[in-house]
């Protein structure tokens, strides 16, 4: 139901009558509008929102991915942290075009922050844009950032019971990366158990096991990225041809 703010529909009611409006006034919808604007703007750039709890290896994975795909893809990254420029500096050290989003203590990135950041980063020629979210498995799950895919890392040191504890994060992700796989012999973590738990929340979730330390699974991860970039470009070309 739409209501004209300049002319509220209740204005004509006589004083003395009880009035009850059944409405569908959606809350927190502003974020979704902005996310849609980002999608329109980044038609031929594949955007990936990388989420996880703090310390599960997002930044190290981004560095390693940048190095491995340097020849194949032009990668840019927006890095979100409550404070400091540290992660953007780490990205630039390996030659990735990076911009830090300092959220000022906020626990997640909102679409508005991405839209503003787009005015300050040169994405000419960029094939793949990573958004490294704030380390948090809860709040970022509720905010669409205009991404094509959401990838969630879960380190083997975090325990294999997390998908059911943070269901919305895993429900809204396309891919779960089990990181720090090199520690599997030393920690009580079962990849089978975590996959089973995750698939009950999201049967369509893809699962990969990776280690940035010994390189396990990184080829598969890079191939996944290349395929997604290719798919985005093909989709963009089709819409321009029409």
């Amino acid at each position, binding site marked *: 139901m739409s*209501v004209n*703010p*300049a002319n*509220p529909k*209740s*204005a004509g009611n006589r*004083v*003395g*009558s*009880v*009035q*009850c*409006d*059944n*409405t*569908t*006034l*959606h*809350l*927190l919808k*502003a974020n979704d509008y902005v996310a849609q604007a980002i999608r329109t703007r980044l038609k031929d750039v594949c955007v990936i929102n990388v989420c996880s709890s703090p310390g599960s290896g997002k930044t190290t994975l981004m560095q390693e991915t940048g190095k491995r795909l340097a020849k194949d893809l032009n990668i840019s990254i927006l890095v979100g942290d409550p404070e400091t420029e540290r992660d953007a500096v780490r990205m630039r050290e390996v030659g990735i075009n990076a911009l830090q989003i300092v959220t000022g203590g906020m626990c997640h990135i909102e679409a508005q922050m991405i839209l503003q950041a787009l005015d300050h980063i040169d994405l000419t020629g960029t094939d793949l844009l990573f958004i490294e979210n704030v380390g948090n498995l*809860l*709040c970022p*799950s*509720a905010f669409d950032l205009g991404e094509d895919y959401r990838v969630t890392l879960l380190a083997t040191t975090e325990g294999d019971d997390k998908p*059911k504890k943070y*269901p*919305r994060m895993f*429900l809204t992700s396309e891919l779960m990366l089990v990181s720090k796989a090199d520690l599997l012999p030393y920690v009580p973590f079962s990849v089978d158990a975590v996959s089973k738990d995750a*698939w*009950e*929340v*999201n*049967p*369509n979730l893809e699962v990969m096991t990776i280690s940035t330390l010994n390189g396990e699974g990184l080829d598969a991860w890079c191939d996944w990225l290349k395929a997604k970039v290719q798919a985005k470009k093909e989709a963009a070309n089709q819409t321009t041809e029409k």
Partner: protein
Amino acid sequence: MHELSIVKDIFDTLSAHYATKIDDIQKIQVTAGLLSNVQPVLIQNAFDAFIADNRQYRDMELEVIVNDIIAHCDHCQKDFNVQYHRFVCPCGQPSTQIVQGNELFISKVIFKQHVS
């Protein structure tokens, strides 16, 4: 989760839609799906804190209705209740086609009764 920003959003939304008539609102009802990460107790507390700071709304009441998560099973052509975040139909078929549970909206606005 973001209960205070949701409460602010409630008042922004109401003033955008009802303008000055917002002062005549007695009660609002918010419907939140279980997947919206909204905790009824926390939103109630955030609402109470907000109206304590904004005296013109001090008599306003809030009711929060929580919706279960319901998904659709293509195999059975039926909707099923999702319990404990297990997105699997009783027939064994997994499904993430969410019919209900993501929503967050103001579902009812009740205005004060004026006695003239």
